[in-house]
């Protein structure tokens, strides 16, 4: 019996340590703490081209993460990318004429959505749509445009 | 489907094969209640297999095994387990649970099958240990026991649930004369005191014959002789006499079947597995 209860203590210790380790991984090592789960309101935005944007990519306002990309699909009517954004509930402050743009962090980093607030009094609510959008910059298009402009300049001269 | 009530075990037309080898071929055997039956036969005649068939651990190819009016191999899982609670089996080497002490081994079936309070389990287990004379060894571990002691502990465990039948698988092999005497006496006294029936599988002819009420000699998958020890001893089959008296040569030849001597030593003998 004595040995049995010592064994129980060890097993208890093992399970407790394991759970502490899991908790440590969840809270300290991952973004769970900053990831307010599902709490938030959804708005949509349509882009001509989303480039390499992925689901769960951050949404930033003035560099601060205010939400995450929830869904990405093609709108069958407009043939544009319909992106669902989930903004945290503690930021019910975005004017209805807020604009959204897709940026890349650094030259090769991941893509995120940057919001620029507008001037309206009314704010975006759940289910609203951001109509002012700027697509991701596609490098090939940029180079093509540059060459075209150069060629046009040459013709002028 | 009727069963003769004087017989605890009835085996009818039992056939069992292992691979291509026929172990039992249309075996018939019945064992009366309250007696000690010794099943004897040379090594490899399937004596242990017979016990496993009775206990329902193996299924026969054909035939039936009836124990206490129940057809063992027609029983559902739960009914078979209920029947097994009334059977004890003593394995050749005891089969004690090596991570439990002697006491816990004997208490094991009680703990598994009853919800008795701890004090009662203690008393019952100690009583059974006392019956085999090992009450003082309760705290030893199976690894510390001699072979004979391990078998006695296993015997105490086998009778823990007060079964109606105890099966002994080669209880005498490899025991010194004193242990042997103890085991022989234990089997007899337990059988009579507890009102059990016992099946004893052995090829130790003298010991088994000395306590058995009935002896069955198996050979070639059949019972070749049965009766009291005296009757079997006086059998007119030369084979049975060779077995019972332990003669080196007889119907069972000394030589394992081999090619003729001349071929092996004078001619070009072949060695198995070689290739040209």
């Amino acid at each position, binding site marked *: 019996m004595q040995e049995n209860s010592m064994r129980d203590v060890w097993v208890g210790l*093992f399970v407790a340590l394991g759970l502490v380790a899991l908790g440590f991984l969840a809270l300290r090592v*991952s973004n769970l703490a900053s990831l307010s789960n599902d709490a938030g309101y959804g708005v949509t935005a349509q882009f001509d081209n989303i480039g390499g944007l992925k689901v769960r990519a951050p949404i930033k306002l003035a560099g601060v993460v205010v939400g995450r990309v929830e869904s990405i699909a093609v709108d069958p009517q407009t043939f544009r990318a319909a992106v669902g954004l989930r903004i945290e509930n503690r930021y019910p402050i975005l004017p209805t004429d807020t604009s959204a743009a897709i940026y890349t962090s650094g030259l090769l980093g991941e893509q995120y959505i940057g919001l620029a607030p507008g001037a309206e009094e009314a704010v975006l609510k759940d289910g609203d749509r951001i109509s002012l959008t700027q697509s991701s910059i596609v490098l090939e298009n940029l180079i093509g445009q540059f060459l075209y402009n150069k060629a046009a300049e040459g013709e002028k001269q | 489907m009727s069963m003769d009530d004087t017989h605890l075990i009835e085996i009818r037309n039992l056939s069992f094969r292992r691979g291509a080898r026929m172990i039992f071929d249309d075996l018939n055997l019945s064992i009366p209640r309250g007696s000690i039956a010794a099943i004897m036969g040379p090594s490899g005649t399937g004596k242990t297999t017979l016990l496993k068939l009775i206990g329902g651990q193996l299924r026969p190819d054909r035939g039936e095994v009836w124990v206490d009016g129940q057809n063992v191999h027609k029983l559902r899982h739960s009914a078979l387990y209920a029947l097994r609670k009334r059977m004890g089996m003593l394995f050749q080497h005891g089969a004690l649970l090596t991570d439990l002490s002697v006491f816990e081994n004997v208490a094991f079936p009680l703990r598994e099958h009853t919800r008795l309070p701890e004090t009662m389990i203690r008393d019952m287990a100690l009583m059974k240990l006392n019956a085999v004379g090992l009450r003082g060894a309760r705290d030893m571990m199976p690894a510390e026991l001699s072979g004979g002691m391990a078998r006695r502990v296993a015997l105490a465990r086998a009778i823990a649930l007060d079964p109606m039948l105890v099966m002994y698988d080669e209880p005498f092999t490899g025991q010194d004369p004193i242990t042997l005497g103890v085991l022989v006496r234990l089997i007899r006294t337990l059988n009579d005191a507890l009102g059990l029936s016992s099946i004893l599988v052995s090829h130790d002819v003298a010991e088994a014959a000395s306590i058995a009420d009935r002896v069955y000699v198996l050979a070639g998958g059949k019972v070749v002789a049965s009766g009291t020890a005296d009757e079997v001893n006086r059998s007119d089959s030369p084979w049975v006499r060779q077995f019972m008296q332990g003669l080196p040569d007889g119907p069972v030849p000394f030589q394992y079947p081999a090619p003729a001597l001349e071929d092996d030593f004078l001619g070009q003998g072949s060695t198995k597995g070689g290739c040209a």
Partner: protein
Amino acid sequence: MIRLLAALGQRAQSALARLGRLHLFLLGLLPALPGGLLRPRLVVDQLFHIGVLSMQIILVSGAFVGLVLGLQGYNILITYGSAESLGVVVALSLVRELGPVITALLFAGRAGSAITAEIGLMKSTEQLAGMEMMAVDPMKRVIAPRFIAGFMAMPLLAALFSAVGVLGGFFIGVGTLGVDAGAYWSQIESGVDFYDDIVNGVIKSLVFGAVAIWIAVFEGLDCVPTAEGVSRATTRTVVNTSLAVLGLDFIMTALMFNI
């Protein structure tokens, strides 16, 4: 030549037969599992053998793997001038891959082989047959508690491994190599995703744990009941578990991160 082909065929056949028995065994085991849960005493005893006794090797290995990751990661990252990403490199490698995989391999060597040997010995000394004759189902009494305990212990061990590894990386990176402590943790926090990384890592370790303990108990039950048979079965447990874990790891990684 023909003999070689025949031998190959025979090996393939026996391997397939073993695979078949492995899965039939699982079918027999599943109904016994609820019964095992009703006997917490037995599960706790097995948790001691499987979990507590594996803790030492898991903690020590985790710490060393973390230290090595810290050193190697730092040396590579410093050439790109991004040593502050050390935390996320260490944490991601551990949580996604090394934690579950190395824990499973160590688990097979420490606990799996011990279980195979124990069950194999119980088989060869007729303890399992003895239990059956005492009307005690070895599936419920012996196999199920071990399976449940292994399944429970594995994610905990993997979490311990990863956590200790992250701390080991912190110790070497921040303590010795001069990475900023704040950067270490904040990089981890922004780079490691709870669902994509932590949850998937735990799922991996659950699957690996189930497979490792499944193979261990099966090999024990399936062994030839002799001393040689038991030792072969023990070897097979370690080899087969390692192969299964590494193969499954590839498949699961492909499924989890490529969608």
